[in-house]
């Protein structure tokens, strides 16, 4: 009757308090990949079903924002657009900024929004933030197609001249998307961890993100900003992303190793820090609600 030969199944788990500081557990994350896709599908279906216009909303928001910017910034305030068509200039900025800010905002409230599920069932918590950036990626792709539609219109009917480089579109562009996603994710994770302790921080985030938009090149080109503000604007990690995007698709915008490199480093640091804090908070967050 010895226990010696009892085979221990491969799927054994040890639950302890002293977790490693940085424990991503990619294997478990991979195991739950189906959940990730189902959550993305849920977000899409529930969005589609709950609204009157359904996915048309994906177009309405950027279109009307662009229109507003054309009127206010383009015509009343007379802010230049680097001699680009105003619609293309604003729409490009808005599309990118929306993706980043949606990722950040939704991720930052992940504990609050999902406390019910989190208190009842275990799964790697990171699945939810990941599902958020993927859900928003779908929205981004739709909005990007809208932008492409405008681009074709201006190219064929308005005589807008631009040269697209295949290498840029195929390599640099995906890198920009990943940067935006991870930047939003990383910052969102940091904030989400803080909001479990301080609920009122989430108000700060909503208007903070609005203010942050004005410190990057969504509504004005980097080329017209005076030297002393240039550095300030370059601090915003989205500046490098937006400028590079405009350079790829519209042929204007400053593409430099410095700004883009800065965005990449900033994103990496934010993501690692975010994962670290999120990892620490998710273990015991349920005790604080």
């Amino acid at each position, binding site marked *: 009757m010895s226990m010696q030969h009892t085979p221990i199944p491969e799927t054994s788990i040890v639950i*302890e308090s002293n977790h490693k500081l940085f424990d991503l557990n990619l294997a478990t994350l991979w195991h739950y990949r189906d959940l990730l896709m189902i959550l993305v599908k849920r977000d899409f279906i529930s969005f589609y079903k709950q609204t009157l216009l359904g996915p048309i909303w994906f177009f309405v928001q950027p279109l009307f924002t662009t229109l507003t910017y054309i009127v206010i910034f383009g015509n009343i305030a007379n802010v230049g657009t680097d001699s680009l068509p105003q619609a293309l200039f604003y729409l490009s900025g808005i599309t990118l900024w929306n993706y980043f800010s949606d990722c950040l905002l939704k991720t930052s409230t992940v504990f609050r929004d999902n406390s019910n599920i989190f208190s009842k069932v275990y799964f790697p918590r990171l699945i939810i933030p990941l599902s958020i950036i993927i859900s928003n990626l779908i929205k981004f792709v739709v909005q990007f197609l809208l932008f492409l539609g405008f681009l074709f219109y201006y190219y064929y009917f308005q005589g807008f001249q631009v040269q697209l480089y295949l290498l840029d579109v195929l390599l640099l562009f995906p890198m920009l998307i990943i940067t935006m996603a991870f930047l939003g994710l990383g910052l969102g994770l940091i904030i989400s961890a803080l909001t479990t302790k*301080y609920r009122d921080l989430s108000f700060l985030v909503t208007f903070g993100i609005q203010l942050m938009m004005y410190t990057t090149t969504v509504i004005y080109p980097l080329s017209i900003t005076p030297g002393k503000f240039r550095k300030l604007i370059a601090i915003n990690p989205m500046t490098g992303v937006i400028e590079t995007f405009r350079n790829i698709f519209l042929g204007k915008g400053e593409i430099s190793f410095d700004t883009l490199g800065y965005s990449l480093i900033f994103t990496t640091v934010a993501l690692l820090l975010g994962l670290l804090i999120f990892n620490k908070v998710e273990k015991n967050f349920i005790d604080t609600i």
Partner: protein
Amino acid sequence: MSQVAIKVEHLSKIYKLGEIGTGTLSQDIERWIRVNVLKLEDPFANIDTQKGSRKHKNEQVKILEDINFEINKGEAVGIIGKNGAGKSTLLKILSRITSPTTGRIKIYGRLASLLEVGTGFHPELTGRENIFLNGALLGMKKNEIMSKFEEIVEFSGIAKFIDTPVKRYSSGMYVRLAFAVAAHLESEILIVDEVLAVGDAEFQKKCLGKMQDITKGEGRTILFVSHNLAAVENFCEKSIFIEKGKLKMIGETNAIIQQYLTTVSSVGGLRLSELTDRKGNQQLKFLDYWFEQDGIYCETNLEAFVNLKIGIEYEVKDYENIHNLQIDLGINDMYEQRISLLTTTFSNERIPNTTINKIVFEIKQFPIAPGSYNCTLFSTINGEITDWISNIMQFNVLEKDYYKSGKIITNNISKALLNYTSTQL
């Protein structure tokens, strides 16, 4: 020799009170300024109601303390304990929803936990979509759900509505669907918490049966928490009794339930008069109680359709100033649903001029159905609350063939037993 499925070693869970913030940044800043700059008292400190003194910062609350046990493969084990004993915290740690403060747990095999049915159900999604969502949340892979899909739908009995958004479901349908998914979880170890509290009796039985099949047939290990002692008794050979965060007993379910019932009926060995968890100004104080059926005192087990006397002993102070005295006796089921409220109001002429008094509530043909219940005692004098103790005086109504129909009325099928006849017209 049986294999170990779960091994818990020196498990503790401790909350530090001082660490809990106020919840908002502005209040935390305000608190910091008050305490450290203005040197005022901390407005958010926890007030210890019993001593009236302010608790020290960093005071610890031990939810679970040095828990050790082993569960073998294929065993169904019940966890019994009063509300707040630490049962759900233990389950949450086992389910990896929160982590232990010290100690460790080894789990051999795939573990799934069912702390709620229908977790993550989205009202806008159809039954079909929710099966996938809920299944995936519980840890199932997509192809696993697909292979069991037909079975799940059939088990739920709502095949007709499978493509209807669940927001249009009745609560019964909702629960059936949710449980159908859960019942098909393929895990070696399953943790179930009180989920059978919902749904109709017939479906509950079906679920218990399904779970039982799984344990007996497939060698699955089950940890089962329920207030429904009858269900625990039917379902688990072995049980764990947790009291005030400590493991009090582990062993055969019958013995554990006996032990549990003696503790609850004496409320941890205390008479009513010794209980400290009570509200009110204590001008009136409940001291003791008894149950009596057919002239016989009953400990905790009562019979339905027999006259019942519930006696309450209480003391009153300041007799002269009583104009109006009210005593309420609420009967609650184990899910803390109020079943009945007996109330009595009288003026002081009706109270004998002594400090210690007794009152008897007499119920003709006690009409409460088999199950476990407890009572709440409440009193006011001149409209002011004097004494209020909740969830005490636990009792069980026995399972018997009350209608002489050859069928035993079992626990938790219904709440009331009506004295009825049926006639063919």
